[in-house]
């Protein structure tokens, strides 16, 4: 199944704010006595697909340097949302982590059971200490784990999730989510905005 979804322009999304369901961020930004409203002529687009993956049996490390066996972490009945990032990435990752950061508040009470995982694809540079500082800088909460590991394990992991592109600089925006360990993954390739991601999440994880 491969559905192409294109979001509406921001202007339209903003118009929906009145409706309540779609809370696009306020984009009327004012300072030095002037106000500029930023229209959104560009399109976000992403592709959604349903996939099953064999998770490699690797032991990663969390931001406190504690070992985390990924299979055990993912063997949960809680819903999971996962992405691949690295801390010195300037273009794609800031957007992906911003979207992640926005998700829990938009999910409201439903976010209580959600586990979020960001796995570094630059393990040589992203030490647990580096991840800890990064997690703090993006305001990551208790249930959002940042993981790193050995170079070969991180590569194996990306291969397993069909996200390895040869070099960290070639990586592409990707979000994976799953209702529970027995279910397949919903794979989101591309940039979904927080509302779109929440919508996809509610589809994947019905209340």
């Amino acid at each position, binding site marked *: 199944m491969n559905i192409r979804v294109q979001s509406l322009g921001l202007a339209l999304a903003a118009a929906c704010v009145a409706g309540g369901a779609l809370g696009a961020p306020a984009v009327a930004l004012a300072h030095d006595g002037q106000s500029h409203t930023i229209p959104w002529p560009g399109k976000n687009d992403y592709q959604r697909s349903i996939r099953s993956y064999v998770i490699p049996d690797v032991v990663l490390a969390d931001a406190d340097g504690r070992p985390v066996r990924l299979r055990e972490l993912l063997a949960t009945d809680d819903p999971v949302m996962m992405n691949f990032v690295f801390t010195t990435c300037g273009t794609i990752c800031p957007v992906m982590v911003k979207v992640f950061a926005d998700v829990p508040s938009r999910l409201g009470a439903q976010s209580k059971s959600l586990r979020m995982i960001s796995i570094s694809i630059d393990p040589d540079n992203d030490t647990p200490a580096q991840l800890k500082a990064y997690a703090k800088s993006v305001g990551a909460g208790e249930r959002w784990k940042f993981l790193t590991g050995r170079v070969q394990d991180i590569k194996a992991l990306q291969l397993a999730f069909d996200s390895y592109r040869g070099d960290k600089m070639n990586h592409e925006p990707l979000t994976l989510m799953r209702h529970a360990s027995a279910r397949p993954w919903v794979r989101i390739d591309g*940039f979904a905005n927080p509302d779109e991601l929440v919508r996809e999440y509610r589809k994947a994880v019905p209340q």
Partner: protein
Amino acid sequence: MPLRIGHLDVLRLSILTLVAVGGQLLAAGTVFAQSPPASDAVVDTAQLALGQRIYREGLGEAGQSLKAVGAAQTSLSAKDAACASCHRRSGYGASEGKFVIRPITGPALRQEQTAEVQSVRGKARLGVALRPPYDEALLARAVRTGVDSSGKPLNAVMPRYALGDAEMKALSAYLFALSAKPSPGVDEQEIHFATVIQPGVAPERKRAMLDVMQAFVRDKGANVRSDEQRREAATMRMYRSYRKWVLHVWELTGPSESWDAQLQTFYAQQPVFALIGGLGQASWQPIHEFSERLEIPSVFPQVELPVLTGINHYNFYFSRGVVLEAEVLARFLRELGDTGRIVQVYRREGAGSAAAAAFRAALTSGATVEDQVLEGPASEAFWQRVYAGNPGALLLWLGAADLAGALAPSGAAPAVYLSSNLLSGRIPYALVKPGANARLVYPSDPPPKREARLLRNKLWLHNKGIPITDEVIQMNTQFTMTVVSDVVGHIMDSFSRDLFVERIEHVVGQTPMSSVYQSVSLGPGQRFAAKGSSIVQVLDADNKQLRPLSGWIVP
């Protein structure tokens, strides 16, 4: 503050002038030197400074964080909103995955792109987008609303910015001048580099580095001799920009406080595009600061004390030196479990004490660490004191000269850990007597892997008639020269120091020539290529072998 700039001489003079603008120090000369405005243009330095702050730091007129809306309708601010975080300092752009971040240098913005470009050479120059040139109004529209100069929406990853009019004007002024002219140190015929050597470096170590560099530069010179003519032959047509490499050796003398003035004098005599290689045992701080201030890239000096904290846009190092070793060792010992009492020995001056301090800070476990400071020559009595009470682990943050007699104590033989950095990369087999338990923090891969990996380097040296006298310096210098050569090839005629830095971040991981380091990689803003090390057992003089005790440890 309007400043009239006419001639190149004025530019060179102004390079060393620091102008304070709005409470911030702006290396004004550097801005103009890297992107001088058209002849006789009136430059408003305060406006350019604001433009630079918006561009590089994402901070607006009142020092406030810029607000922007990025892809997936995320609100971005400060560093994430700074133009340079995607378009990079140079303005030449970048690519991440399928996202191409277009060049926004002055020339690129002014350029009209009229035809779909098919040829690889044309693409290299122009890119592929079709659009009219930007003027100030079109640029403002693009920045604020995300519509390009042809009226088409820009890609969603380009944020939309809420900029005030003064800010927009400043950003325009900055962008239209950005990377518009070559950085200093390059002319139509030559590209100049310098290598900096601190006082006190042994002549044979200097020779080891310079022989490799000079052989490399000679080869370059021989190759570019007739390339301009060769271009006329269809089979030799390559889009490249040939410059003769000129290498200057800047040998510093006297106390470190005087080095900055010496560097300025060298630079005034002949500006260089970049500093390459370099040697020294003392802190690299004065050279690092010189390079940051004048925005001159410095590529992989081989130093014991690199600068680890503070601003670093232009200084690439192989590793964090002894501090990395100390952290790797702390991690290794922590995972080893209870080692008992740890004793570390160092001299108060130089890298040893930096290592000891870093080890103490990194060892978060409850182990007892005791320091023994070596002063004067190491006597037998000193070593007896160190070994007294049979410590569980002994860390000797010392050079080879201090190790005589240290590794063959009578009686007890605790695990003794040594630093590759402080031993200048030489493996101290001769010092290890049978029965000693000597271990080394080791940045390379264990033999025979290391030998296989370095074979290519050694063949090159052999072909150039250079004997191997200092393997570490020679291999690392070859690596540095190859990286610089790759990057100069990549940047073609875009002689921007910032672009040079950005390309180094990219090519280091893929360079075919090896350094002694087992694994090197960089990324945007990363300045230390080798991020880990391993621990090996050093067998004695009769066996001359290393046995791995750990994998690659990234602390």
